[in-house]
């Protein structure tokens, strides 16, 4: 019979472990360190740490440069016939990327098309952002029936298939860069508005907004100066993807012949080349490649911005 003392010995596995005690200070330190930052240096260095984003920036810079320099590099109308038709790429020094079915220079078309695509992509996004942020900010900040009315309006827009609405809008107006941008903005603003509304709804409850009101700031000033800068990160990320989708929408419209017939655009070039897809596929493929690269570049930048500006993801990447 073993002596009783063995069971009561210190270090016995029956002894309950001491209750876990954590010093209070351990909780506090985390609270102070994880404060959100949105300094510009942070974004730049985050882009630098993200190689795909650098590729995106490089491609976008190239496309932008091409668009800006196109009147100098390719003076004259890109829709003018400049050589014999169906000239393959690299076959002639005068037409490095060949010519289309009518003998128009494809490189000149791609360069001038970049102007159209970027201009419409940027202006449609800018307009969509202004409309969407204004509506979303008002709905999220004011609440009540303002919020209810704007939310219902957003829902109405989102229940209509967006491309159908876009085609209708373009069909009833004279197609030009301005009307195309406006139509694309009308189709895309609800996405931004929903995002901005959600951000403003949560931010308006923050202590710093109450503190701002206690200093006598007006509602307009609080919306623009206090809340908007804090709501901006997710909106910036969305904007980069919006530019890409606006470019795609413009291309799709032009492909269907609904774009401005007087300017060359990537979409219209693909559309005109589709009849010769089996004999001269390069006529459609080259502007298609331009669209793909530009959209890819914008998406890569969007991903990197999301990593850099999203506090949840930033915490995960040590």
């Amino acid at each position, binding site marked *: 019979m073993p002596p009783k003392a063995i069971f009561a010995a210190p270090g016995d596995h029956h002894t309950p472990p001491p209750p876990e005690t954590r010093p209070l200070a351990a909780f506090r330190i985390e*609270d*102070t360190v994880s*404060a*959100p*930052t*949105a*300094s510009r240096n942070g974004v730049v260095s985050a882009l630098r740490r993200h190689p795909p984003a650098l590729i995106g920036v490089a491609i976008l810079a190239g496309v932008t440069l091409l668009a800006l320099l196109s009147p100098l590099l390719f003076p004259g109308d890109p829709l003018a016939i400049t050589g014999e038709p169906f000239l393959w790429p690299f076959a002639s020094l005068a037409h490095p990327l060949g010519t289309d079915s009518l003998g128009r220079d494809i490189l000149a078309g791609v360069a001038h098309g970049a102007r159209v695509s970027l201009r419409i992509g940027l202006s449609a996004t800018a307009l969509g952002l202004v409309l969407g942020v204004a509506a979303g900010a008002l709905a999220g900040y004011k*609440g009540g029936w303002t919020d209810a009315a704007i939310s219902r309006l957003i829902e109405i827009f989102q229940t209509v298939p967006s491309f159908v609405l876009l085609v209708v809008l373009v069909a009833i107006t004279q197609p030009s860069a301005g009307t195309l941008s406006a139509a694309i903005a009308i189709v895309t603003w609800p996405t931004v508005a929903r995002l901005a509304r959600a951000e403003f709804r949560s931010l308006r409850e*923050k*202590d*710093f907004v*109450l*503190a*701002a*009101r*206690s*200093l*006598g*700031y*007006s509602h307009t000033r609080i919306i623009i*100066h*206090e809340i908007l*800068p*804090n709501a901006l990160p997710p909106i910036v990320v969305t904007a980069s993807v919006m530019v890409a989708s606006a470019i795609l929408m413009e291309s799709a419209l032009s492909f269907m012949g609904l774009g401005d017939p007087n300017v060359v655009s990537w979409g219209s070039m693909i559309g005109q080349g589709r009849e010769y897809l089996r004999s001269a596929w390069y006529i459609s493929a080259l502007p298609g490649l331009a669209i793909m690269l530009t959209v890819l570049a914008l998406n890569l930048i969007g991903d990197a911005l999301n990593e850099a500006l999203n506090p949840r993801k930033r915490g995960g990447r040590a």
Partner: protein
Amino acid sequence: MSHPALSIPAFAVPHAITPLLEVQDLQVHFGSKPAVRGISFTVHEGETLALVGESGSGKSMTALSVMGLLPDGGRASGTIRFAGRDTSTLSPAARRALRGGEIGMIFQEPMTSLNPVMTIGAQIVEALRQHQPLSRTAAKARALELIDLVRIPDPKRRFQDYPHQLSGGMRQRVMIAMAVACGPRLLIADEPTTALDVTIQAQVLELLDRLRRDLSMAVLLITHDLGVVGQWADRVAVMYAGRKVEEGDPSALFALPLHPYTQGLLRASPRLDDAQHYTQGPLTEIPGSIASAAGQDGCAFAPRCPQAVAACRAAVPSLRILESGRKVACPLAHQD
């Protein structure tokens, strides 16, 4: 002959002169739920009034009503007069001019009360330029002075800092700098030290008291910490479940609390001079919770009161003024 009152300094202005802040029968409701059930108090020029009570007693809602910043769904009734003007009759623009201009406010949570994406310098400059016609450079110079005034070392460097680069105590100092930037006549401090370390609390309170004297402001100090009250307040009003239950001079109130709730509060606080220190025995707690006051007729404290009699549950006891000038809302309280 000039009026004799004109020759005496501001801190000795007799109570007959219009008080700086006069709250009369203030009630705040959220839907049908009352948060404040008829509170009246006054704050005079240069004085510190402490509003004391536990969580849920309506202290913060009282302060926000004075600012006109009740949360959505809150309705206030009763009158609030600031410097003789009824604030409910002011236009929205005039109310905004009051907020930050004549009434400053600091909040409980310094960690979240500053805009995280702006430098503290820019935030102080903004607060200054909201109410004063200052140029950018003049505002910056004044902001640097304010940072120095609230005892933040190295103002030039701190000016460029973002809130997350500062500690809680430093952030509360920045909040104070913003609140006093335009030289308010009244500073409302809603639990200004609750979120801070004990060592920082005293420094911040001392800063508030010094600023009160230097800038000749009145302070409405809202707190649940009786230790804070004893040292820094000129007058104390104890709140329970949306009503004022006792008011008086802090030394008299601590020496002889009259209302059973005040007595309970004092017994529940550790005191150095007492034989009863929490290392020697447990602190006495007040049984029950403030939630028991809901839907109750009569004295809100009756369900938790050890001395309650049948009359306490019949009608709300009115605030009596005793011979000594102290006020108490308990029919059983008496001064021996």
